[in-house]
């Protein structure tokens, strides 16, 4: 079926199959490399590597039918920087040293963006709950939480 949606601010239009996931379409047909799969064989382990924002709400793209993107706005990590400048959350992750292997980073940053856009603040408990659907197997989360806290303090709640 034919779907049209906005991907990182640009209009896209393409044919998708009923059983195709949004992940398959983003990665294989649209060249979006920030979305990843990790532990999905047979079930979902809630690792968060496939996270994208649909109309600003974080979802797992591997479980989302691609046709559901029709008429929606999809944001991936590629859509965050402006004019070659990194998004404040990207800068905060770099400054805090919150990236090790980098596999979880796109999902973490998108989830953090949704958290801050929704009015989330620097409270550590809230940050931990916000990233509960994202696994990191390197950092132990401390520096990721630091980065999100720094971005929250700098943004006054909403990061554009």
């Amino acid at each position, binding site marked *: 079926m034919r779907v049209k949606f906005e991907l990182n601010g640009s209009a896209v239009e393409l044919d998708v199959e009923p*059983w195709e996931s949004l992940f398959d379409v983003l990665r294989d047909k649209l060249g979006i490399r920030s979305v990843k799969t990790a532990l999905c064989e047979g079930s979902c382990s809630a690792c968060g590597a496939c996270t994208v924002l649909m109309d600003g*709400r974080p979802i797992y793209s591997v479980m989302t039918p691609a046709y559901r993107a029709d008429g929606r706005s999809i944001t991936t990590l590629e859509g965050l920087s402006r004019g070659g400048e990194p998004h404040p959350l990207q800068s905060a992750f770099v400054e805090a040293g919150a990236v090790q292997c980098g596999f979880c980073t796109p999902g973490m940053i998108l989830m953090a963006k949704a958290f801050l856009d929704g009015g989330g603040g620097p409270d550590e408990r809230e940050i931990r709950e916000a990233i*509960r*659907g994202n696994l990191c197997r390197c950092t132990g989360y401390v520096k990721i939480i630091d980065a999100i806290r720094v971005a929250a303090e700098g943004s006054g709640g909403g990061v554009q």
Partner: protein
Amino acid sequence: MPSRVVIPRTPEEAIERLEALGGDAAIIAGGTMLFRLRNSGLLDHVGGLIDLSGLGLSYVKEGDGISIGSYASLSDVYRWASSSAARTRALGALADAVMSMPGWQIRNMATIGGSVSISMPQSDVATSLLALGARVRISGPSGERTVDLRDYMAGPLSPALRTGEFVREIVLGHPGGGSAHEKFVVSDIDHPIASASAHLALADDGAISSARIALGGGLRRHVVLDSPRVLVGRIPDEGTLDEVYGAVRDSVDPVDDFSASADYRRHLAGTMARRAIKRAYTRAGGSAI
């Protein structure tokens, strides 16, 4: 594998399409279960997906009772259930159940209708709704019918739906009182080994006037204890909770597998029920047990 998707815009169209496809139809709501199973072989017979997203069923309404559209996401249900002090007390089990699942991504996708339609005791949301006395309003070729949730959840992935039918809404009375959900899991992403939800209403003196306990997790089927004698009319103390523990242990039929023995699950079911009653009693306005 389905060759097409239909997104009906009216209930009549949905019923017509479901009837036309018959056993080849699969209803898709949030999609979290269907997309997980898509390579499992279980869905190879599915010829077409009937998608409920176009029917305007994302609402939560409060009138004579509470009606939750089947397509309402768990995150929207949670926000609604925690948006006033009275709801936080009465619907605490539902909010607890949603928040016991890891991550907003899943909560944004999974729907309340899907949570009951997978018809599995592992569903925390379904367990909480059983304790809250939920009913399921079904639309179909012969009109609407409303069934008790425990009758609707007939077996794993086999809800009591006839050809042409779909779930329109989940209906709750005005539960009042207080409720809570507790579960035991090995890790955040696992199914619960044992879970329990409790709903209690209290008389003015703090005695329990009505009670319902629902047990889920690794059981062969959900168990609902309606107005158990060990609770009704009593002001609960530790001794009461010991009796509940015993009654729950005896009422469940747990699975026995690599993650927990049947006996251990019986113990955990009793323990989760104790904890859920303790919290539900405080939420209902009782003093701490």
